[in-house]
């Protein structure tokens, strides 16, 4: 180590660690790096999982460790923090734009599930009962921008995504679920 290590530098390094499932965004864009602590030559990175069962969690920890070691930090400590629970509201604006450019629709509305869990459930019930779709966020197609889209599957290729189809350009696309 030639220069003294500072937190800002570590953040720039972490900004280059790609999410293993969606490599177009970094772990910082994803909002899962909660804090960085520097103590002499040791670095503590606090991460929060996206979903309890996200299989990428361990890969992300290893990637963070590897990236810091590549920059000469040998003493890396990873702390997992569950609370406050991760939410898609923590996705950075840059991250949202990158997702869109990659063909994944970013979360349409922020934190539906946190603002009203019971409300969310009630909305689902009224939607089924033939209510208007006002409670359902409109998801814009990442390809053509149309909001004339429909849900085809509540789950997609990873736990964090759902499958949609655009009725305008007819392209199927992944939607990063609001969480």
């Amino acid at each position, binding site marked *: 180590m030639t220069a003294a290590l500072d937190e800002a530098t570590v953040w720039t390094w972490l900004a280059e660690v790609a999410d293993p499932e969606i490599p177009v965004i970094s772990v910082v864009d994803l909002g899962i790096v909660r804090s960085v602590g520097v103590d002499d030559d040791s670095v503590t990175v606090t991460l929060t*999982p996206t979903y309890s*069962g996200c299989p990428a969690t361990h890969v992300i920890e290893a990637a963070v460790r590897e990236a810091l070691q590549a920059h000469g930090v040998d003493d890396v400590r990873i702390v997992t923090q*569950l609370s406050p629970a991760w939410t898609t509201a923590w996705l950075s604006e840059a991250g949202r734009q990158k997702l869109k450019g990659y063909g994944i629709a970013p979360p349409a509305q922020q934190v539906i599930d946190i603002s009203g869990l019971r409300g969310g*459930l009630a909305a689902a019930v009224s939607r089924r009962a033939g209510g208007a779709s006002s409670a359902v966020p409109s998801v814009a197609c990442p390809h053509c921008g149309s909001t004339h889209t429909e849900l*085809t599957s509540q789950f*997609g290729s990873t736990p964090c995504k759902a499958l949609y189809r655009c009725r305008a350009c007819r392209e199927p696309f992944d939607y990063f679920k609001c969480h």
Partner: protein
Amino acid sequence: MDAKVQYLLRLGDNALVLSQRLSELCGKGPALEEDMALTNVALDLLGQARLWFTCAGELEGRGRDEDALAYLRDAHDFHNVLLVEQPNGNYAHTLVRQFYFDTWHYFLIGALAQSADARIADIAGKALKEVTYHLRRSGDLVVRLGDGTALSHEYTQTAADELWMYTGEAFNYDAIDEQMVAAGIAPPAATLRAQWLAHVGDIFAEATLRMPAPDAWMQKGGKAGRHSEHLGYLLAEMQFLQRAYPGAAW
């Protein structure tokens, strides 16, 4: 064993056993979307089980980690409710089992997110969003099948009736549950049961399904380690590697 450790093991066992049941359907779902949904729900539950087991193992202080708790206990040491170990039947059966579970799980996890125990509240707070999504999906599907064709209605009604006797156990509190209630850790049975009955009633009404009698006779025993024979087979498959090659590691 400490009551809180036992309570944590029950939470972990319910999530793990249902996760394993759903995993059995990987690649066998009736439609691609359903296949993905079942396995994603299984994955969420597995993640939750790991968090509960890790917490239980640390609190117990005997050096048992999540793997030891999942792989190195026999059926009588599992404390899940009988509902989650019921085998996968036809798809209506699988879905109704899920809906009964999800409804209970949603209200339980919601209450645990407000638990007096900070660590339990953190895990539940994390799980709550996942559990809410599960319940929306299984409730939607029960309505679609119940209020679908004559055949789907018949299958769903049959499943609702057959699984009903396994739904009472979750609200049948024993000394451990009551200790958790007294400590402000877990919600009282009466509250949970009222919420469960109200939501199942709403969905069944919409699904044109007949709700079985709430005061019907209910099966029990899972929480005390007395299981149906189904759990043994499930564990035999899930624990095969550790039974055949004790201590095997990646």
